[in-house]
């Protein structure tokens, strides 16, 4: 028969148990203290806050967030309901909620940042953004690109997912290379290592990583998708042609045809299987390798981004932002929740195992949680200043969103890699941009 009370080992409490129990008490106490420090206004007491969000790639983060949200709810008398759904289903869900004029109070854009599409139906939360920004040294330069429309904050950036270069030191050393810094270095390594059974790979397919990775290469080569206002197309450039030419050479020399079929997780497996000499992926690949292939993990190192021909480095990250529907029944509680959540950066970053890169400048003070304590991950502390998002240097407008959703960039790189001429491929891609941007201007 099971007892309700926890059993105490006959030999007394050992050191591990003591640390676990005392650590949990301290952590719990600290969390409650922090929650108590920021009391929400009385008018939200007795209300319900409905939140929808993705399922984080690091499940432990969801466990932490769910737990913290419940504790915040209890401390403030708010019944918090947090629904996690797969991130690919979020856009369809928002379209449905918008059409119905009802749904969750606090919504979450992951990867596809729909602020510019929905801003007319989102609450102006500039007051919340200003408070958080002032408290933590200001927002990083690329944050407004995701959260502002015409200078007004309609979203609060939560965190972004860095997509660095993950490379195998042992393999690089075997061909006389160490400490790679540029795209040229990585291309050379792939050229030398492919014949030895260790090619590289970046997705030439219709997946999110393909949208990120080829844009990172483009931006490092100096390509601009639009002007800073996001209105004028700027992709038809010498730099874009150079980026395509480089990608074609890198594919021919250092990749196999597998990359045409890859999804977002294929490169993770490629690294973890010990085949890849390097990949360009989020640190989930690093973590997967840590868990599944310790030998490979031991030799896997990281670089926030490789530099282009002129030394430019731009890392195209996956962003996550919160927003509040205008038809939300509990916007007041949603705002309080966001203010309180932003005080929890260290706990969130720790729960995400270093995945959640901050949007606030103060959080880059070294040592950063998790990253600062790990020799390999510590390079990500220098990510500030190189982070860019889709549509760079413009904001993520609905037109930029459509270019992303219809995979124009992965497709133009695929065409060139498959042997189509750069000029023909450019003509097609520029045509797609013009057609899409013209539709959104009309």
């Amino acid at each position: 028969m099971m007892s309700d009370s926890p059993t105490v080992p006959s030999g007394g409490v050992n050191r591990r148990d003591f640390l676990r129990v005392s650590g949990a008490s301290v952590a719990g106490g600290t969390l409650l203290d922090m929650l108590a420090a920021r009391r929400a206004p009385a008018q939200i007491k007795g209300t319900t806050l409905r939140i929808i969000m993705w399922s984080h790639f690091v499940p432990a983060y969801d466990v932490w967030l769910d737990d913290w949200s419940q504790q915040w709810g209890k401390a403030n008398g708010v019944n918090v309901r947090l629904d996690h759904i797969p991130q690919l289903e979020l856009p369809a869900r928002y379209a449905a909620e918008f059409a119905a004029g009802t749904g969750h109070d606090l919504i979450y854009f992951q990867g596809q940042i729909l602020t510019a599409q929905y801003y007319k139906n989102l609450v102006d939360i500039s007051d919340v953004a200003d408070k958080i920004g002032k408290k933590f040294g200001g927002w990083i330069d690329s944050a407004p690109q995701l959260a502002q429309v015409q200078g007004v904050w309609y979203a609060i950036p939560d965190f972004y997912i860095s997509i660095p270069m993950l490379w195998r030191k042992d393999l690089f050393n075997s061909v006389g290379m160490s400490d790679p810094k540029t795209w040229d270095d990585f291309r050379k390594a792939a050229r030398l290592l492919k014949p030895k059974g260790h090619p590289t790979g970046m997705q030439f397919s219709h997946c999110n990583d393909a949208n990120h990775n080829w844009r990172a290469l483009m931006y490092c080569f100096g390509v601009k998708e639009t002007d800073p206002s996001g209105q004028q197309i700027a992709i038809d450039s010498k730099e874009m042609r150079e980026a395509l030419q480089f990608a074609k050479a890198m594919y021919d020399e250092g990749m196999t045809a597998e990359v045409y079929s890859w999804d977002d997780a294929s490169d993770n497996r490629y690294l973890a299987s010990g085949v890849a000499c390097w990949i360009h992926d989020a640190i989930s690949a690093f973590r997967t390798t840590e868990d599944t292939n310790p030998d490979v993990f031991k030799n896997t190192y990281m670089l926030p981004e490789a530099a282009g021909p002129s030394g430019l480095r731009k890392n195209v990250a996956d962003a996550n932002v919160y927003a509040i529907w205008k038809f939300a029944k509990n916007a007041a509680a949603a705002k309080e929740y966001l203010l309180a959540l932003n005080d929890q950066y260290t706990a969130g970053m720790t729960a995400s195992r270093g995945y959640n890169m901050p949007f606030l400048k103060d959080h880059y003070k070294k040592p950063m949680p998790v990253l600062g304590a790990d020799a390999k991950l510590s390079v990500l502390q220098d990510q500030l200043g190189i982070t860019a998002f889709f549509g760079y240097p413009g904001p993520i407008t609905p037109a930029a969103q459509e270019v992303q959703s219809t995979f124009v960039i992965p497709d133009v790189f695929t065409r060139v890699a498959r042997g189509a001429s750069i000029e023909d491929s450019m003509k097609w891609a520029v045509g797609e941009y013009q057609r899409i941007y013209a539709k959104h201007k009309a």
Partner: protein
Amino acid sequence: MTDLPVGGAAPDASLPATLAPRAGVRAMWRRPSARRYAFGYTLLAPAVLYVGLLVGLPFLFSLYLAMSDASVGEPIARFVGLENFKAALESPTFYVALRNSLVFTIGAGIMKSLLGTTLAFLLVQPFKGRKVVRALIVIPFTLPIAVSVLGWKWMFDSQFSVINWALSQLHLIGGYGSASWPVWLGQPTLALFSVMFVNVWRGFPFGAIVLLAGLTSIPPEIVDAARVDGASFLARFRKVIVPMIAPILFIGAAFDTVFTLSDLSIVYLLTNGGPDGSTEILPTLAYEVGIRAGALGRGAAISLFLFPLLLPAIIILLRTLRRRQY
């Protein structure tokens, strides 16, 4: 009881003007044919309501969206006429998706017909464990599509494909990394073949079951008589079996065409339309433009291009079916 003349009795001139129409209605209602009609329409009403609400209204709403500049974030949409259809026709990607949709539907349809027919003839034969086999055969059709397609995604994986591993073990292809190692979802022709293959795998048991239902309804003496008359298997199939089960076959074909042409899940989960649009079909393109990119009007217009493709096929099938009935 005497039937009133058609059109009902003339209003009584002595009645007040307001009562005259009511008297006419009452008189009409006394006719048994009118009551029969009313009863019939009452019974039909739930079905009409059901079709109207669940099919008619969404269709009209799609038409409205396709002729407007509706987007996911705009509460008010403007009428733009045929602009969205024009925009679709101006896009090279649309033609690729249209071509792929036709190849996907026709190719998969032919393969499903051949395999479904063969399977149905095998299953109609008496053999030990036939009931178990009949039950097992419908598994692909009954499995949740996301689960089965993800299974296939693994089997088509570029690195860990069990199909490639088996072929390699049989020395039909080289090892992983060799030039002969197929990348099922990465080579344009193979990718389109792969998505069609999964559709066929999932759909042909349905065809077989439909055909099997038809085959079991044919009195065996008719087929035996044809056999005695010297009709070969093909002649019996073409001249006796097909004509007798034609209504079932037509309905099955109509369903299958509609489901295949509008099938989003398989392509979405396996390739998402890639690489370079080689598996892009109209439903995936409509989803990308309409939902992911938020241009509801243009997305609806793309999806409505399925309608003129399906309509003639369904009309031909239903007309043929009606002709055979009368």
